């Protein structure tokens, strides 16, 4: 199973763009990259998923370089409500959904 490495925590201010990078050096050919957001006392919420290049949806963008050994979640113009833990997962689903400790993002006013 591909192991992921993310920063433990990050701080930002309202209105800034936040980029969280995840390293996954031993990603397999069939693996997708998925990001989840979790607020305290709630279940994780799906943010975005990608395989290569760039994916964008209404809440975030995901940048994946050609070698796929890392990925960057980009949150445009964060607000206080974006304070949460963000998890990067790599796998082909099923029992491959292994969560790490995640990145605790704190958005300050």
């Amino acid at each position, binding site marked *: 199973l591909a192991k992921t490495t993310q920063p433990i925590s990050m701080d930002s201010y309202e209105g800034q763009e936040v980029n969280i990078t995840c390293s996954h050096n031993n990603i397999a050919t069939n693996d997708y990259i998925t990001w989840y957001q979790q607020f305290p006392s*709630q279940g994780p919420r799906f943010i975005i998923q990608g395989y290569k290049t760039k994916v964008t949806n209404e809440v975030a963008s995901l940048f994946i370089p050609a070698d796929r050994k890392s990925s960057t979640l980009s949150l445009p113009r964060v607000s206080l409500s974006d304070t949460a*833990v963000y998890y990067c997962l790599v796998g082909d689903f099923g029992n491959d959904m292994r969560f790490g400790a995640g990145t605790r993002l704190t958005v300050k006013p």
Partner: protein
Amino acid sequence: GAGVSQTPSNKVTEKGKYVELRCDPISGHTALYWYRQSLGQGPEFLIYFQGTGAADDSGLPNDRFFAVRPEGSVSTLKIQRTERGDSAMYLCASSLNLADTQYFGPGTRLTVL
């Protein structure tokens, strides 16, 4: 539409007791997953079902933990002879098929005194 629901939201029990945690997946979702999350850590995979059968139960910590999904919809996670170390948030997720995005419920917070 309705999301994944879990009951109860909170469960307090005494060491040695038996508990059951229920998960109602999104209607039509064939895959169902159970995770356990301790404070400050990411969710830890326990078991997943494809339909009625447990496709992978390698994450169950020991034989005190058991899960069923008899009709391929609702699932129950059962913990026998609870220990204080079982205290955690138990999360359930479902996906349309095995390779699809997982959607999580709000969790059941289990406290073993």
